[in-house]
C-alpha cells in the first residue's frame, strides 16, 4: 500500500486511534471519537486536495 491515499488513510487511522485512546476511557466512546477523527482527517484531506486542484489548475 504505497499509494498516497492508502498511506494517508493508514496515517489517519493510527493518529485517530492514539488520540481517541488518550482522550476517552470507555471503549465505545473511544471508537466513536476515533471514527470521527478518522473521517475528519480523510475528509479534510479530500477537501484540501480538491481546493488545491480547483485553485491551482
Amino acid at each position, binding site marked *: 500500500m504505497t499509494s*498516497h491515499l492508502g*498511506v494517508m488513510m493508514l*496515517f489517519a487511522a*493510527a*493518529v485517530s*486511534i*492514539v488520540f481517541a*485512546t*488518550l482522550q476517552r476511557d470507555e471503549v465505545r466512546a473511544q471508537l466513536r471519537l476515533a471514527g470521527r477523527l478518522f473521517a475528519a482527517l480523510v475528509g479534510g484531506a479530500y477537501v484540501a486536495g480538491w481546493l488545491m486542484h480547483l485553485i491551482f489548475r
Partner: protein
Amino acid sequence: MSASSTTSRERRDAGLADAGPNRIGVIVLAWLVPGAAHAWLGQPRKAVVFFVVLCGMFVTGLALSGRLLPFQVADPLAFLAAIAQWGLGVPRIVAAMAGAGQGVVTAATYEYGNTFLIAGGLLNMLVALNASDLASARSRA
C-alpha cells in the same frame, strides 16, 4: 491552592513519602517503551493500544524508506525532526543499532516514511505526558 495539594504537602511535612508512582520514572518509562507506563499505572488495555500503534507507525516509517535523522544544528528543521524521532526511545535505539533507517531519498515513499517516524515520536511524547498526569493524580489521591 487545592485541597489535594495541601494533603500532599501535609504528607511531605509529616515525613511520609507519597504513595503514588515516581513521576520522572513514569515519563522515562513511557518514553523508552510506548505504553509501558500505562501498563505500570494499571491501564493495560491502553498500554497495548499505544504499544501496537506507535511501534507499528515506527516500523511502517522504516518500511516506507524513512530516514532516522542525526542531530544537525546547521539544519534547524532536520534538528527538530530528529528530536521528534527520538520520542520513541527503545525502537529508535534498536533500529539505529540494527543499521535500519538509512533512508532512500530517491524512493517515492521517503517523505511518507519520515512523516510516520516523526509523528510516531511526537505521539509518544503526548502519551508520556498523559502518563505523567495519571501518576501525578495518583500521588495526590
